[in-house]
């Protein structure tokens, strides 16, 4: 089962290597990973999308907590957190497909951020499922390049981490 884990870590060099090394060394999966400082500059937040059964998830959480540089591990599920991802999508847009791309962008409330005679570059945000959905529609029109940030997640209301 897919899980989104948010890891609050010391904002120091080498910390990402420790976290990533833990996953590779112990055979845990990383579907996506994103990292940036929090409002407290001494901390970074790593969001990892991973998969595994309950026993694997328990080990991942415990092993992360064991790292000295890890301050907090949050295991998010759909009902206690909101998840978003940003994607930059370059799609072929010539002749009649130019209008079709614009319609899709409009429906998904995405934005065109670069235009050439032969392509549009789209910025889309949303839950990963929404990104997948827009990609499914754009793919037949000629997907030229795709860059995704990977998910970030934040707890709903009081759930989560201050900072």
């Amino acid at each position, binding site marked *: 089962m897919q899980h989104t884990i948010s890891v609050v*870590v*010391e904002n120091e060099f*080498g910390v990402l*290597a*420790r976290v990533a*090394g833990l996953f590779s*060394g112990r055979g845990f999966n990383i579907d996506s990973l994103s990292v940036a400082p929090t409002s407290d500059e001494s901390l970074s937040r790593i969001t990892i999308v991973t998969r595994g059964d309950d*026993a694997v998830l*328990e*080990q991942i959480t*415990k*092993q992360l*907590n*064991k*790292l*000295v*540089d*890890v*301050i907090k591990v949050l295991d998010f599920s759909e009902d206690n957190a909101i998840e978003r991802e940003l994607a930059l999508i370059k799609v072929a847009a010539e002749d009649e497909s130019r209008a079709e791309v614009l319609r899709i962008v409009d429906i998904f409330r995405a934005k065109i951020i670069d235009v050439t005679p032969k392509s549009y570059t789209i910025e889309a945000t949303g839950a990963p499922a929404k990104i997948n959905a827009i990609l499914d529609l754009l793919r037949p029109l000629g997907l030229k390049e795709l860059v995704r940030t990977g998910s970030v997640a934040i707890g709903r209301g009081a759930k989560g981490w201050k900072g």
Partner: protein
Amino acid sequence: MKMNGARILLESLKREGVDLVFGYPGGTVINLYDELMNVREIRHILPRHEQGGTHAADGYARATGKVGVAIATSGPGATNTITGIANAYMDSIPMVIITGQVPTPLIGNDAFQEVDIIGITRPITKHSFLIRHAKDIPTIVRKAFYIARSGRPGPVLIDFPKDVQISQAEFKWPESVEIRGYKPNLEGHQKQVEKAVDMLFVARRPVMYVGGGVILANAAAELTELARTLQFPVTTTLMGLGAFPENDPLALKMLGMHGAYAANMAMTHSDLILAVGARFDDRVTGKIATFAPHAKIIHIDVDPTSIRKNVRVDLPIVGDTRDVLVKMIDCLKGQTEKVTAQHSAMEAWHEDISGWKAKHPISYKQSTSVIKPQYVIQKLRELSEDDAIMATDVGQHQMWTAQFFEFNQPRTLLTSGGLGTMGFGLPAAMGAQAAYPKRQVICVCGDGGVQMNMQELATLVQHRLPVKIVVLNNNFLGMVRQWQELFFDKRYSQTCLELPMDFAKIAEAYGAKGLKADKPSEVEQVIKDGFAHDGPVIMEFKIAREEKVLPMVPAGASLNEMVLNA
């Protein structure tokens, strides 16, 4: 007062109570070594290889419970410590390794003798630090020692660039350190302890399964008290040997792949396993699917990741094993009637266990013509002092030592359990002997492993460390040969050490004493002469070449499917 970084590091070590380090000089630690000449309080032992120095620091830590310290230069010096670090990591040994590093501006430039030792050792250290400013040294050293020795102990590496060793700063020792991401959970949860005690009372076929965590937490006395109060049988892992006296009637001895029949049968038939500071390693459990099928499991461990890693657990208690055991003992004190009732309810179980012990005790066939290795181990126990420290290498001799040398005190067995490092024994014994110059320190090796760090004979002689090295020589890499005999149709691929070595002569060449025995009748005298000699000795015993370690649970088999005679 301002001083250079090298001196600040040494002053910090002094503050941590370090009086002995094992290290090897080189280009990027030359400043540190220069300062060392001004610091009389720190004794330095010079091994002949950084791996030896690291294992020696490890052996020192195992024998004393203190943090072992090893120093190496950058590049090859640092990479030579890797096996020693991994070995300490797998067995949770508190150690601080200080490596020289090329000057900060050169890091990343492939400078002479540069390696990214922090990167290389990341998966085998509990934590690591790169020192970037001399003023940070006291805090880093303080943190490193705290992390190394607290919670589940482990090795911590400090990488120390040459320019930082030279630069000047104020020495300010921090009164305390705060690491916000590191808060080991030491206090066992009282409610969980009470639940555990309730489970103990309803058990009819209980076993205490005890690992190295009990020794690391200095909890052997509490464990022994708990076992005797409850009258529960106790089996120990290899790492747990010495946590419970093996001469106690409740002792089942070691379990697992080469464990005692009674211990493995007790685990298989148990209805409650009280696991204390043990991690259900594959050498202990055998086939997981059939492991202890009837047992509820209570697991006490300071490391939450050990719990439910390999087996299901009915009741976890995270905490320092000593703290949890003390709470359990306290909890039992108010319930003496239940304890007594429990004793009588276990009579049938104790009879079963006595039956298993009598049916297949750990044994071997004695011979009058050829030396049996088990006989040598028995004689060593008989002729050695009660508090003798035994270090082993890895292989058949290690298992024979575990089976036949009776361990009755904690910190008297130094052995590489998790990593299984050949070459560990001799330098580990060296570290223990350096810590305890007056105690008897014995090192049992095979003819394979002893040659992996034999250069440390020079260190023993130079520093007058009278380690008694026992080489059980079968001219084979015996454990692998045993597997080849049993599971590979006797195809002895590369396990015969063709060259007949004269280990006694090697000892003499280093200035140590060399003794040897070819016949069983000579064994006792050689051991007596070796023990009587005031200095390092190699005692070589030409043993039965194809003797096997038995019983044996073949890899992947269930614990009760033991090969008893093969």
